């Protein structure tokens, strides 16, 4: 991650998605480099979630190209895309219930991706699960409990462990701290920062919370009405916003 590298991990060009005549997102282009955290900010309806879904392959864009490691994820087969989805990619949902199997134990949740890529040794799978629960600060003795017995913050951490256990390179996060208490948010942010640094993860982080963006993101893209209206270094966008909308957005926040 210290190495700047000469190839972008993700290259997005002219990405557009329409819902009928309504714009989901339009003409979005950017490169994401290994180890980089890109924040996408904007208010509800600005197209951030649509963009994230198109990037993660959950929605098919109407126009444009998404190259991951040089491979076009829009035109590749669904099978290949799904393999990426459980190996190189991870997706952290805002609502942990969307990203967890609530009827399966914590250990089973963490182990699923391992088993999906062929792990067949129960002891080794359980060992990895215990290791990962530890890394997200969940006691090992909760391994056989189901997520519904966990607090919101724990569920979110479990979702992160479940996603990172296969050592992905690119993580999509949709409001990962949304809906959590402020103190729980802080703990999660710290955890995410550490994991991003230690694993050299590239992250695309969608959030409407500028404070979260400031603490996690290296770079920001500001979206309004489906378009990227400004992008740059996180502290530059927040401290010296150029676009009228960004200035309004930043000045509307109590303190970032």
């Amino acid at each position: 991650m210290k190495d700047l590298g000469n190839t972008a991990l993700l290259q997005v060009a002219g990405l557009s998605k329409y819902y009928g005549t309504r714009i989901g997102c339009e003409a979005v282009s950017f490169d994401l480099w290994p180890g980089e955290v890109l924040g996408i900010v904007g208010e509800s309806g600005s197209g951030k979630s649509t963009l994230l879904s198109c990037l993660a392959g959950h929605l098919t864009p109407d126009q444009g190209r998404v190259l991951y490691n040089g491979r076009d994820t829009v035109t590749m087969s669904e099978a290949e895309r799904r393999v990426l989805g459980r190996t190189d990619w991870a997706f952290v949902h805002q609502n942990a219930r969307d990203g967890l199997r609530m009827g399966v134990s914590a250990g089973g949740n963490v182990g699923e991706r391992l088993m999906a890529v062929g792990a067949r040794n129960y002891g080794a799978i359980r060992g990895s699960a215990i290791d990962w629960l530890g890394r997200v600060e969940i006691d090992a003795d909760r391994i056989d409990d189901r997520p519904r017995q966990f607090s919101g913050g724990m569920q979110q951490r479990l979702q992160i462990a479940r996603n990172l256990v296969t050592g992905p390179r690119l993580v999509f996060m949709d409001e990962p701290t949304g809906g959590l208490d402020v103190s729980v948010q802080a703990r999660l942010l710290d955890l995410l920062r550490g994991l991003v640094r230690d694993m050299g993860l590239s992250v695309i982080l969608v959030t409407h919370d500028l404070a979260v963006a400031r603490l996690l993101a290296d770079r920001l893209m500001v979206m309004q009405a489906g378009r990227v209206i400004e992008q740059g270094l996180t502290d530059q966008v927040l401290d010296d916003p150029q676009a009228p909308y960004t200035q309004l957005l930043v000045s509307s926040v109590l303190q970032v």
Partner: protein
Amino acid sequence: MTDQAYNFAYLDEATKRMIRRALLKGIAVPGYQVPFASREMPMPYGWGTGGVQVTAACLTPEDTLKVIDQGADDTTNAVSIRKFFERTGGVKTTTHTAEASLIQTRHRIPEEPLRADQILVYQVPIPEPLRFLEPRESETRKMHSLEEYGLMHVKLYEDIARHGEISTAYAYPVKVEGRYVMDPSPIPKFDNPKLGGSPAIQLFGAGREQRIYALPPFTQVVSLDFEDHPFMASKADHDCDLCGCSTSYLDEVITDDRGGRMFVCSDTDFCEARRAQGHRGRLSPEEAV
């Protein structure tokens, strides 16, 4: 005597042809669940409507039919299905495995090894092995087509985590020819090893769920497991109390309300044959010499 009001074996020929097409596709793609237009049958769902339709589509006037329910030839379900085909098809019926050319079964594979000239038809309640963890049919179909079977092991993982071993004792999932994961119907896992490499054709029919699948003769069938928790075909650790057999699958029978119990072969035909050959178990009646 055939009941003239019905076509041979109840179903009309067009329906049988539709089912046979599904069966042929199932044979061609072992373990793949073929959708078929399941008909209303004159019996409730859960009583073998899928199996009965497959049997009807396969039956010829020359066949000899055997029907077993949990291994027994004499339970209501087995008797009524046997009568059904006697009346609508006029076919011969038997309780002896060796004499049958077509065997419809609920939840067992006969103890006696099957032959190449026999067909085994299973009644299947829930054909989708992934249903336990993934309720969406659209998603499970996709998982089959893309061979995404990690979830199946999650189920086994949960078993071990909760019970210390794979506690799934019946409907134990298998992988067919290294491709499709299949639910073998609720046969005890004791029977799983008999699924693979069998000379007989094995056909599976799920009436309510409208699915047919099949194992052609000598198909490779592997029960899923973990390296450190290998599959084991278990049975009750007893001998049959009637015929003394130590290797057959046993039913536990409560004999009184004071805790009395006995273990007997679940395959009644197998047990009777052994007793006829003179084998005796712990609770066999004294011989009247």
